[in-house]
């Protein structure tokens, strides 16, 4: 038994990692919906979900249950195979893309799995970025096929729109990254992050400074192109035409109900997360701390954020209306505070989680931007969308490539 | 260790199947797709040969050629599909056997 484990440790470890990652991602997905609804609600000066559980914290769970138990009709005359394939494809691809995201530089200290060091990623191909793009490229099919297979007008239009939109913005998406690639000379995400480590904050590709040279190669333009294109690529507002309620009912997933619909839903949010990871990694130094390593006190920032927040949650819970809330919220807050304290108590652990903390913080910020954009910006018209993609983003990203190359030459790269 | 010949035979088979469907199918789009299949088979052969000759790890001409093939295939697809759309628009049919006159 054990030698079986030792022999195939790598595979088993990978499977376990995948399981854990799936769990985390799905949970985050769930609460991302909650977060989105809350933020949008507050932007629109509403309360948002607050019935199911304290502050509506159980809303996602309720939604999940609803998805599971709802009736799942299959419309007449659909192409069964494709109809079922589409959501699976979408979800599978979206989740796969998470596999190559590195969440931290070094393996968990002191713990190995039958001799296998436990890294914070599932796979680390040295063309991970290309892999990501490949997956993004394929994820068009989920939407397109769904639209076609539903054998209905609105979905078909939605599918057409989305596939057109995706292949249009894929160009800009890819081109805008070339600048970063030129600076890092690699497709590996970890290498890209390490390439930004020369100077604490300003070494990030966004600012583009490097040790030993006065000339910066900022990727601001590249970042803008990438982010906008990514929003469009993930069919998020203000580019969510494929599911434009006002025109297409619900776009490509009009004919999908219950869990198949949930699949599309999860796929979309996972894509959001992936994109956020990419933005953080490509332009904002991934897991790198913005502060110089000499400032050791910055290591306490996680606890410094967790402790007061936990205490606030406890305080808030004590004054909460419902009994349930009075019980649960303090517990959650206590847990948070405890973690914060623990981090202070065990510096080894604290040091280990630093990179991950920073990466997650950045991802969180980007996600907040996502939601913010959705809450504020009106949806584009279709022609505006296409013009945006072909006449603005693509030229801009190409210009960015040229600019970066020129600057690098100047710098004597 | 996979011998090069395996790849070559696979590419031969794929090419042949591409030819079969090229002859056998009537739908213009499908025929077009079978052409793409043949191109892919050829690409496979290219890469296989490249890996065979690439002993120092610096001879990648085969892969370069594959890239060119891909680019050309993309251009071809763009134009070809445009033509197909026109055919459908003018003939109301995608069956090549119904499209056998140069003029309408």
């Amino acid at each position, binding site marked *: 038994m054990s030698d079986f484990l030792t022999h195939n440790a790598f595979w088993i470890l990978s499977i376990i990692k995948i399981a854990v990652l799936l769990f985390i991602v799905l949970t985050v997905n769930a609460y991302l919906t909650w977060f989105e609804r809350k933020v949008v609600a507050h932007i629109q000066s509403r309360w948002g979900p607050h019935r199911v559980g304290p502050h509506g914290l159980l809303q996602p769970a309720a939604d999940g249950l609803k998805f599971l138990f709802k009736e799942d009709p299959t419309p007449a005359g659909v192409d069964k195979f494709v109809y079922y394939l589409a959501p699976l494809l979408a979800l599978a691809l979206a989740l796969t893309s998470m596999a190559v995201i590195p969440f931290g530089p070094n393996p968990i200290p002191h713990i190995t799995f039958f001799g296998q060091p436990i890294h914070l990623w599932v796979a680390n191909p040295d063309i991970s970025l290309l892999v990501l793009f490949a997956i993004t490229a394929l994820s068009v099919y989920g939407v397109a096929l769904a639209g076609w297979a539903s054998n209905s007008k609105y979905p078909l239009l939605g599918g057409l729109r989305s596939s057109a939109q995706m292949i249009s913005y894929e160009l800009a998406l890819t081109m805008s990254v070339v600048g970063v690639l030129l600076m890092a000379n690699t497709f590996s995400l970890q290498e890209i992050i390490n390439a930004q480590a020369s100077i604490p904050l300003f070494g990030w590709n966004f600012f583009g400074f490097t040790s030993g040279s006065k000339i910066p190669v900022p990727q601001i333009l590249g970042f803008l192109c990438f982010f906008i294109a990514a929003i469009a690529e993930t069919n998020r507002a203000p580019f969510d035409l494929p599911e434009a309620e006002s025109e297409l009912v619900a776009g490509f997933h009009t004919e999908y109900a219950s869990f198949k619909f949930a699949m599309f839903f999860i796929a979309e949010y996972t894509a959001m997360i992936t994109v956020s990871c990419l933005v953080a990694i490509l332009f904002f130094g991934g897991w790198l701390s913005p502060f110089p390593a000499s400032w050791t006190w910055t290591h306490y920032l996680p606890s410094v954020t967790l402790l007061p927040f936990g205490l606030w949650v406890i305080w808030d819970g004590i004054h909460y209306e419902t009994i349930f809330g009075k019980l649960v919220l303090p517990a959650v807050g206590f847990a948070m505070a405890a973690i914060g304290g623990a981090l202070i108590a065990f510096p080894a652990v604290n040091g280990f989680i630093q990179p991950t903390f920073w990466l997650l913080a950045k991802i969180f910020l980007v996600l907040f931007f996502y939601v913010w954009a959705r809450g504020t910006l009106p949806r584009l018209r279709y022609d505006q969308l296409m013009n945006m993609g072909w006449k603005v983003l693509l030229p801009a990203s190409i210009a960015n490539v040229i600019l970066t190359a020129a600057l690098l030459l100047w710098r004597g790269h | 260790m996979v011998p090069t010949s395996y790849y070559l035979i696979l590419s031969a088979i794929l090419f042949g199947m591409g*030819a079969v469907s090229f*002859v056998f199918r*009537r739908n213009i789009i499908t*025929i077009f797709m079978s052409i793409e299949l043949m191109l892919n088979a050829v690409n496979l052969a290219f890469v296989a040969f490249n890996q065979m000759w690439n002993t120092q790890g610096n001879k990648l001409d085969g892969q370069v050629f594959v890239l060119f093939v891909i680019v050309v295939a993309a251009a071809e697809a763009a134009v070809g599909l445009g033509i197909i759309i026109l055919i459908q628009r003018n003939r109301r049919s995608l069956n090549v*056997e119904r499209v*056998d*006159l*140069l003029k309408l």
Partner: protein
Amino acid sequence: MPILEQLWIIPLLPLLGSAINGLFGAKWPNKAVSSVALGSTGLSFLFALEAVREFVYVRHGELFRKEFFDWIVVPDFLHGGNWFRAGFDLQMDQLTVVMVLVVTGVGFLIHIYSTGYMAHEGGYYRFFSYLNLFMFFMLILVLAANYVLLFVGWEGVGLSSYLLIGFYFLKKSASDAGKKAFIVNRIGDFGFMLGMFLLFRTFGTLDFTAVFAKAGPLPAEAMGQFGTITVACLLLFMGACGKSAQLPLYVWLPDAMEGPTPVSALIHAATMVTAGVYVVARSHVLFTHAPTAMLVVAIVGCATAFFAATIGLVQRDIKRVLAYSTVSQLGYMFLGCGVGAFGAGIFHLMTHAFFKALLFLASGSVIHAMGGEQDMLKMGGLSKKIKYTYWTMLMATLAIAGFPPLAGFFSKDSILYSAFQSEHGGHALYAVGLITALLTSFYMFRLMFLTFHGKPRYDEHHVHVHESPWSMLGPLVILAVLSVIGGWVAAPALWGGEDHFANFLAPIFGSGEAAAGLSEAAAHQLELTLAVVAIVAALIGLGVAFWLYLKQPGKPEQLAKSLKGAYTTLSNKYYVDELYAAAIVNPLVWISTNVLWKVVDVGVIDGAVNGVAEGATAVGDKVRHTQSGNTRSYAVWVVVGALVVIAIIFWPAIRPALGMVR
């Protein structure tokens, strides 16, 4: 030596002028066109002068030769080097000097004249473009350093002559004359090319210097012996006959007078027609090795001189008289060359260029004055009305008639002298030459008297005689001066001094001069006597003309009646044209109509072409059924093709596989 090193610029300038006028001139005003033409020719004249100065004073008269670029090169793979090379090589020696100066100088003057003469003609730009083109080719001809390049110029002047004769191409006679000139010249060129081939076969090169260097040492061939050199010389002379209108190929020149008068002056009197003489003189090394050829040249020249002179006696058209006199003067030149007096020949060429050009221009001025009338019998008494023309033309007439001290006297005199000196029937040649001189002076004064003296025979109310503009008279005057003093360079020879011209050419012809056996004093004595005789002959001709055409008008008619046969024969130019027509032209036409056209062309060529076409149609008719338009069957064909190709390529690999199948 800036210009000499860049000799190519002299011919190139006229070419540029021609190109500019020909391409853009159509839209331009006459002023612009003429200024371009004049500018190019005048400039090349100046450059020529400079080049000559450098040649004479810097190089002290030693041959200058430069290869500018290769043109035709056949490398010799066996022995290396070039098996054959004809480059764009130009050379400059004394002979070239004379020719270049004559061509550019006279050419320039005639350009000036033309600006006035052609002022009211259509196709002004065309005319000047052609004229410049002619200048270019003529310069190439005289500057060329090998036979091939010379031949380029040779053909080129032929072409431009054709173009200019047919300048009024709407006039059938003009275009016919152009064709005639072209075709007759082809005959000569045929011989010329054969001569070149023979030379190349003999000497393995066509560069003048090389050929002459190789030919020089060879022993001279005996009289009556037809060795290689003799044959080559005769062939070259055939070309010369064509170009210089000698018997029997002279027929084109009189008709060439259809062209505008300046053309007749420049091309068909002064320069082009003398190209033949130039070639003979240029190849004198060869000719001196071929006495037979020399004799032939001499006889032909002499005969032509006499023959043409006789025809000239009775012509009524002023330009035709001049044309025949040109032919006969050319005959003189060949006579000179033929008796070995190349220097004298070239000398006469130069002087003739002066006075004959002058004659033509003056006659042009006359025609201009008479409003296009060319028949002398419809003129008369013009001397008062157009003084300048009259006096200049008189100068030219005196010159050509050989009155001292004008140019013609010296040149003709030296030719006759050398003829008299030459062994092989020198005296006969001299006699004929002398008679010809007499005839010349007769018909020239006949022309003068008919044109300028006596009472007007034209309707004075309709024809308003007017003097030509100075653009035409200027050249006349200059040429008149030249034809007066042109001969003085050789004058001292008379009173036993130096013949500067001969001395100048001596480096080339040196030995060529037929130095008679007798002593200096005797030779001088003889020369004087001959000169006196010649003058007497000229006077006789003048006298007869005076008596016939001024003293008793109407006498000529009686004469013509009394000697009707001779008169008609002469006025019909010995029926030579008719003879040629009967003997050559008509048979050719018949053959090409009935055999080449109706049998060969229609039957064989068209038949073959149409047959092929019909065959293609028939096959296509059968095969087209495979082209059903159905893509799938096409696909099948594609597969078949691929199958075949792959099978062929991989046959050795496939055979065993088939074996497995079996």
